[in-house]
């Protein structure tokens, strides 16, 4: 309880919600911080074990304890996971999956956010007959299990010649990202002062004029939130990747699962953990860098319009 002994602790604890600070090391505080620390261990343990395992050699893993720090640090597993690990006949490591995921992510991001922001804008400021009906269907659609739409999408993609290609997956991500993103943008644009919209209209700006000159510059934060939401969502997707792409175009998550859960050969746990960490790195970096915006993104997803 290092924190409870510092001079500021008393002042902070005096907030209107807490009970009176009886003593700095009160039973309540020990319980409070003790519980939080214990829970923190449960949350941090897997990350710690993954990092430690990925830095050990296989002999050390076989003999030692998974919780023990590495005696001899080696980056071999990371190199192997990135460049040499095998899936089926390809032995060029996770780098291929990483490349595919990037190639899927960037167009999906641009396409889904531009479409959803314009949709949200139309729904907030340019309602037309039936627009709310379509929007309601869209939101209800977000609750339909994907499984009931998987096969019809296969047919659609086959008809337009995109089945198995990266662009097919981009389209799928755009479609399934639409409900939440449209809701996000619609709510944001509705919350902007109406006078802004009216003033721009009086000045003669049309649908696109208002969007590009007034709405877009004012909504950079919500675009960032949408981007965070989509980057983590698309990067972490497994289901659509495994169904709508071929082995050559598998995204990183699918390739990772194939590497780790392959039944052939000796299991190299250190390489597996390095590969797992590599796949988790992008969303983790986004998470730690974006901080509050990430929380805002998921809260926006949670709070209904």
């Amino acid at each position, binding site marked *: 309880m290092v924190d409870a002994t510092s001079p500021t602790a008393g002042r902070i604890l005096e907030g209107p919600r807490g009970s009176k600070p009886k003593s700095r090391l009160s039973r309540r505080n020990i319980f409070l911080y003790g519980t939080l620390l214990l829970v923190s261990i449960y949350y941090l343990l897997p990350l710690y074990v993954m990092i430690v395992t990925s830095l050990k050699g296989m002999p050390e893993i076989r003999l030692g304890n998974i919780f023990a720090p590495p005696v001899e640090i080696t980056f071999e597993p990371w190199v192997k996971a990135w460049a040499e690990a095998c899936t089926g006949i390809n032995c060029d490591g996770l780098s291929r999956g990483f490349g595919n995921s990037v190639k899927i992510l960037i167009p999906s991001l641009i396409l889904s956010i531009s479409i959803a922001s314009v949709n949200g804008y139309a729904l907030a400021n340019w309602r037309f007959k039936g627009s709310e009906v379509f929007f309601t269907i869209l939101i209800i659609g977000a609750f339909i299990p994907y499984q*009931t739409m998987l096969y019809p999408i296969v047919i659609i993609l086959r008809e337009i010649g995109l089945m198995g290609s990266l662009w097919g997956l981009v389209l799928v991500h755009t479609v399934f990202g639409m409900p939440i993103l449209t809701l996000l943008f619609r709510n944001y644009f509705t919350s902007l002062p109406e006078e802004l919209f009216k003033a721009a209209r009086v000045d003669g700006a049309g649908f696109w004029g208002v969007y590009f000159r007034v709405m877009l510059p004012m909504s950079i934060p919500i675009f960032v939130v949408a981007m965070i939401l989509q980057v983590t969502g698309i*990067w972490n997707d497994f289901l659509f990747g495994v169904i709508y792409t071929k082995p050559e175009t598998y995204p990183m998550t699918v390739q990772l699962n194939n590497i780790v859960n392959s039944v052939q050969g000796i299991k190299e746990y250190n390489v597996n953990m390095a590969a797992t960490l590599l796949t988790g790195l992008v969303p983790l970096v986004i998470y730690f860098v974006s901080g509050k915006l990430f929380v805002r993104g998921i809260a926006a997803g949670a709070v209904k319009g």
Partner: protein
Amino acid sequence: MTLADTARVSDNPVRRPKQLFRNLSAKFASIPMILTALVVFVGGTAWTVAHSFTKSRLLPKWDFVGLDQYERLWNSNRWIISVENLLIYGVCSLVLTMVLGFTLAALLDRKIRFEGAFRTIFLYPFALSFIVTGLAWQWILNPDFGIQGVVRNMGWESFTFDPLNDPDIVIFGILIAGLWQGTGFVMVIMLAGLRGIDEDIWKAARVDGIGITKTYVRVIIPMMRPVFVTALVIIASGIIKLYDLVVAQTNGGPGIASEVPAKYVINYMFEAQNLAQGFAASTMMLLSVIIVLVPWAYLEFGGKKRG
């Protein structure tokens, strides 16, 4: 989305004959949304439901067989196990994420130090994919090298903790990983709810001499009903999608002991070449969502509309 703020609906309330061409840019811009809503969501779902009454195998065909697929589905041992697993996982995960999520949020709301650090720690797994989560826990629960191995090496030779290879408890092994990934998210929602509660409530409770725990149970939780309902709906709709985690952690094993409905659907549609069986299973998933959501939507939106 229900309380239509009519303020911004078109500039002219009088209907003119050229209705279709008014607001043309907005309609044009909404084409992707309309297509998604009608073709993929409504059309796709209807197509799947309709084809679940056929005997399509490799390719979808229109040969109507009534409820045969459903009969076969409910006679399938694998489907029954899948549904049981989802029920166990669902109930445990729902109760535990709510209880743990709220408890953590309440602890963090006690004006503690390092709140930001704790929140970051509890939420980071939510940024990771189910595949990463599943593989990490598969390693920790590995019988030879994981927790069981470590404890045995310390001298307790008979210690047994091998959930991923024990058909009776494998679903709880998956639950541990699922809770790890998802509780932080519920905590954030709960924390937002707690922050929305007026400070005066706490003052009043203190003046009345009501204890902290009692205040939470009697006053705060009832006040946070909408937050709980929102969290419940989100968790429930996430549970039914349970798929990646199982694929990564156990791939349905040992045997078929950790199969789940979403995996059944995908295996039948894309691997076993038995489309209609997959369609029937996915229709059952849809049905269960409807059973959960319709009462909620009715209570949540039905009342307000009239009010």
